[in-house]
């Protein structure tokens, strides 16, 4: 077994598989990936590896199917069947060699990519990351064994390409299809596809990874058993592990829709790290590498807000997985501006885009520094609300609003007329109106556009 395993390691598709996966991943990630820095965040890197499985399983399934088809191409199937040596002792070394190669390919890709994350990473939860990476590695093994089974059951020269393409389609389409099923357990987690969460403090709990690993490994074991068994009866029995795992795992998956159901906020990653000096500017531990870059624009926003009475005194990053479900902490009395860093990535040298840094001040001043989540206005904001936000931001920054193509239709015109209306009154009245708008947003009462343009809420 040991010796034949070593021979198969050299003779089979194992090494070409490693080489092909590495070559394609390195080419596509490092040449084509524009800002694939994973923000110096280990969890984003681990999840990024899981989403590249979409490409990697194509190679794993193809390598397995090609390998299993070789006996037929060589015309030795009947010859081998006539020997007293059991089939399993002949094919297990091949299956093992391919499995080890596929795991090696996956881990090497992760190791290479981690060179871009390690220098800027400020937080790691080793257990959760090992879980996410482990599920990816298990998926590669399962894919190789499914490929072996496909090549064995359908010995045609068309099998390897068709199996590869089907694997790609299954990964791409099935997760969408399963994701839209009902409101119960997130069945799309039965597939290993996992996109990085935009939120840095998000994590996949070890329990979710363990469930996924058990299920995927069971599918792999079923495929291997069916591939190894020489008799049809055993081949049918081989589906048992997969069915059993499905019944056990599916009800226990977290509830929700799509891969996002896998994520929760890691409380330790979300602990605050604050900049030296005042006013207070804090980010989560996991984003701490960005603290020095966001401090200046955040303080600029606080300085602009200081033109108003009872102005906020701190900027604090608020972790969020889905914007619509976030509510500010009950302690919030309007003395804090909540910062959302999810739209801003960092490049491969850990730096934020200068445009993003400029944009951050403007974003913090939106709605006069009051989070749109406070009254759950996200998505419910009217064009007048957007216009009011534009006008107040421009007023705080002391220059006329610049046309913004991202605004909904109608908002641009309202911004122009509203700005004229606001600036036509004396400075003291302008200040009073913006302060009233802020109060209205904090208490979720009043029409902000009317306050700005006419001075009174209707």
């Amino acid at each position, binding site marked *: 077994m040991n010796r034949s395993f070593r021979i198969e390691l050299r003779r089979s598709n194992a090494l*070409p598989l490693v080489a*092909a996966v590495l070559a*394609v991943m390195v*080419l*596509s990630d490092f*040449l*084509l990936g*524009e800002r694939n820095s994973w923000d110096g965040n280990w969890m984003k890197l681990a999840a990024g590896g899981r989403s590249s499985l*979409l*490409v990697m399983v*194509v*190679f794993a399934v*193809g390598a397995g199917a*090609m390998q299993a088809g070789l006996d*037929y*191409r*060589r*015309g030795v199937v009947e010859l081998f069947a006539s020997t007293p040596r059991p089939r399993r002792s002949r094919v297990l070394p091949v299956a093992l060699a391919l499995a080890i190669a596929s795991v090696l390919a996956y881990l090497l890709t992760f190791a290479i990519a981690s060179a871009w994350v390690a220098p800027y990473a400020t937080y790691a939860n080793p257990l959760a990351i090992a879980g996410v990476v482990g599920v990816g590695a298990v998926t590669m093994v399962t894919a190789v064994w499914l490929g072996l089974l496909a090549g064995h059951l359908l*010995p045609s*020269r*068309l099998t*390897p*390409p*068709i199996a*590869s*393409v089907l694997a*790609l389609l299954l990964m791409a389409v099935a997760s969408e299809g399963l994701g839209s099923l009902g409101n119960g357990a997130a069945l799309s987690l039965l597939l290993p596809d996992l996109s990085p969460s935009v939120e840095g403090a998000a994590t996949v709990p070890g329990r979710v990874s363990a469930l996924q690993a058990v299920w995927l490994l069971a599918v792999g074991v079923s495929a291997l058993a069916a591939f190894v068994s020489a008799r049809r009866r055993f081949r049918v029995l081989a589906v048992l592990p997969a069915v059993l795992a499905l019944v056990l795992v599916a009800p226990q998956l977290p509830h929700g829709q799509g891969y996002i159901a896998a994520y929760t906020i890691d409380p330790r990653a979300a602990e605050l790290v604050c900049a030296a000096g005042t006013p207070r500017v804090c980010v989560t531990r996991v984003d701490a590498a960005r603290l020095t870059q966001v401090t200046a624009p955040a303080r600029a926003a606080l300085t602009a807000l200081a033109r108003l009475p009872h102005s906020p005194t701190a900027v604090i990053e608020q972790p969020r997985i889905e914007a619509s479900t976030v509510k500010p902490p009950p302690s919030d009395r309007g003395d804090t501006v909540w910062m959302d860093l999810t739209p801003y990535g960092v490049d491969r040298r850990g730096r934020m885009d200068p445009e993003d840094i400029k944009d951050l001040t403007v974003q913090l001043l939106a709605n006069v520094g009051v989070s749109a989540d406070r009254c759950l206005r996200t998505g419910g904001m009217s064009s007048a609300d957007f216009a009011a936000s534009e006008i107040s931001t421009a007023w705080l920054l002391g220059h006329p609003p610049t046309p913004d193509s991202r605004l909904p239709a109608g908002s641009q015109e309202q911004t122009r007329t509203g700005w004229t209306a606001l600036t036509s009154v004396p400075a003291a009245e302008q200040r009073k109106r913006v302060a009233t708008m802020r109060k209205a947003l904090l208490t979720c009462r009043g029409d902000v556009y009317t306050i700005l343009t006419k001075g009174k809420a209707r």
Partner: protein
Amino acid sequence: MRWTTLYLRSHRLPEALLTAALFTAVVWALTAMFGHHPAAAPNLVMMAASLAVVALSTTLNSTDDALDRTAARPWPPRRAAHLLGLAAGASILLALTLLTGTTFGPFGFALRDALGLTGLAALGAILVGPHRAWFPVVAWCTPVIFLAAGRQQVLTWMIQPAGNGPAALTAIVLAAAGILGYAVLGPPRRVQADLAGAGS
């Protein structure tokens, strides 16, 4: 004629054509069902082209390459014609969609992809053997499915707009290298030795 028929049949052309047509039809049907524009996205056209080429490239596989070589026939023009025929077949399959409501086009785009990918498959046949000729095609196209035509026009040549210079040049280089190389060199002898006495 008789020779051609026997040659094509021994290389399983009917099965390959059927599979290529099936692949194209499936991608076409999915695009027609879920797409919002009559012209399919470049990534989908590439997918259809690559699947057609993958299916057709299985005809490079012969039952016994070593035996083929012993035939006293001038092989280079025949191999070149075989590959050009595959590229033509793939382009015709894609061009058929121009008659329908969901198009894999423009024709220049489809022709470039079919030619370039056929060349890539031929290079695969030279380097890793005819039975793995499909592999470079799948390996190059799979990551590109998820990319947008922007930077790195040479690496993503299959999804660039029809008139793009670097993309067309890449396709021509691949096609020329693959078709000429395969015509002159044929399948590698190493793989033949590996498969000596192959039954199927």
